[in-house]
């Protein structure tokens, strides 16, 4: 059947926010694979606010269908300026909700942006933990 995308989805597809590569990111997350038709990459620049780690800048690159592109775009918009802890809690449902819903079949296949973000945050924390450990030696 024809895919019925919400107006919001189409807006993000037409003009994705925070699109492109980031030079020297603090961390990168990536999920999906090409065989399945969706690959999402998220670049993070982390800053401090009130002693907490926040997302100072975020960028994405996506290979995939309309909903894959729209979900990564809206995700970057939703978490920019948030603390890492807050951003980490973002779920697929939050993303889909913000977009005014997704076609059911797309809900679980091209809605991987929150996972890509978590992967990026995980990578950031691992890296900083390693750095700390290294510092501790």
């Amino acid at each position, binding site marked *: 059947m024809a*895919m019925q995308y919400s107006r919001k989805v189409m807006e993000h597809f037409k003009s994705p926010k925070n699109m492109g590569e980031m030079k020297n990111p603090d961390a990168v997350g990536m999920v999906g694979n090409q*065989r399945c038709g*969706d690959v999402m*990459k998220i670049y993070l620049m982390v800053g401090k606010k009130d002693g907490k780690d926040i997302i100072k800048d975020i960028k994405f690159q996506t290979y995939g269908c309309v909903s894959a592109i729209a979900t990564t775009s809206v995700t970057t918009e939703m978490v920019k300026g948030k603390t890492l802890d807050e951003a980490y809690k973002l779920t697929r449902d939050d993303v889909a909700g913000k977009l005014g819903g997704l076609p059911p079949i797309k809900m679980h296949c091209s809605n991987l942006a929150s996972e890509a973000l978590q992967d990026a945050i995980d990578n950031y924390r691992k890296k900083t933990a390693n750095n700390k450990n290294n510092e501790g030696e």
Partner: protein
Amino acid sequence: MNRIYLDTAATTRVDPEVMKAMEPYFTRDFGNMASLHSAGRDAENAVEKARRLISGKVNGKEHRLVFTSGGTESNNFALKGIAFANMGKGKHIITTRIEHDCVLNSARWLEKQGFEVTYLPVDRQGFVSTDDFADAIRKDTILASVIHANNEIGTIEPIRELGKIAHEKGVLFHTDACQSFTKVPIDLKKDNIDLMTVNSHKIYGPKGVGGLFIRQGMRIDPLLHGGGQEFGYRSGTVNVSGIIGFSKAADMMKENHVEHMAKLRDMLIEGALEIKDSWLNGPSGNLRLANNAHITFKHIEGESLIIHLDLKGIASSTGSACSSKTLEPSHVLTSLGLRPEEAHGSVRFSVGRDNTKEEIEYTIGALRESVETLRKISPLR
């Protein structure tokens, strides 16, 4: 914005002349053909004229054209009807991996009912090998069904040779000609065809109408049992206006339409292949359906490309998994040997007799732009 329709392989608009031909049969000559009174007789005469006209297009003298609700019904009817009527003789059926879903899923359902089905592979361009075909025929083979021109990649199969082999071994031969009818010359007799599926909505006729040519004297069970319409082969109140529209549409398709489409097709293919990391699927030239251009763009996902083009006013189609309900890439493309990621990045443009050179030029430009944009936001290189 004037839209550019490049999806005639999916369906076509109804031509205004077809519409005009149908109209009287909705509101005036609407009689039930099964009725005794004159309203019924008028309808019957019109339908018989339509039957002769369509049959005449494919040298159907030895066949009976049975009208159905479309290509899907005709293919289900052919496979299941032959299977159930001839299972005393054998329970083996041959088909290919690149059939339309309605053939494949009919075959799969028959497997559940105890039939055996061989699905022949195809080469990189989508051709079935006559040797494979001959080798697949067994003593208990009752039917072989091979698509005439493939709906995704436009490959025209060597049906005359395949039909000949089938007949030499006493196997009935069916071909699905939904894409080729009126675009590729067909001679039911010379092409060794026992059963052939055609439909209306790919040739500027209405949806919900099709036909199955059945060689006279053949054993076939009806798929739709009932009042015995259509010589007992297909029951149901006959869709008079639809049939009139179908025959008018068949009548209107002319050689020069096919030439026009082939020219636009080649222009589009040439332009698209100038975009780097792209290739054509299916053969080029005479063995390719006149309206079909099927291109793969690396590192592009088809649905996104289709929608991008749609926003630019261009209607096209894709074999990407993301566009299907099963989330599987097109079985036709994977049968060619395309990897899933390659199948995702493929787009089908199917031109029509109304398209112009200017439209194709615009399309090539739009395509170049969209591919560039999507490649730019992609993390793949």
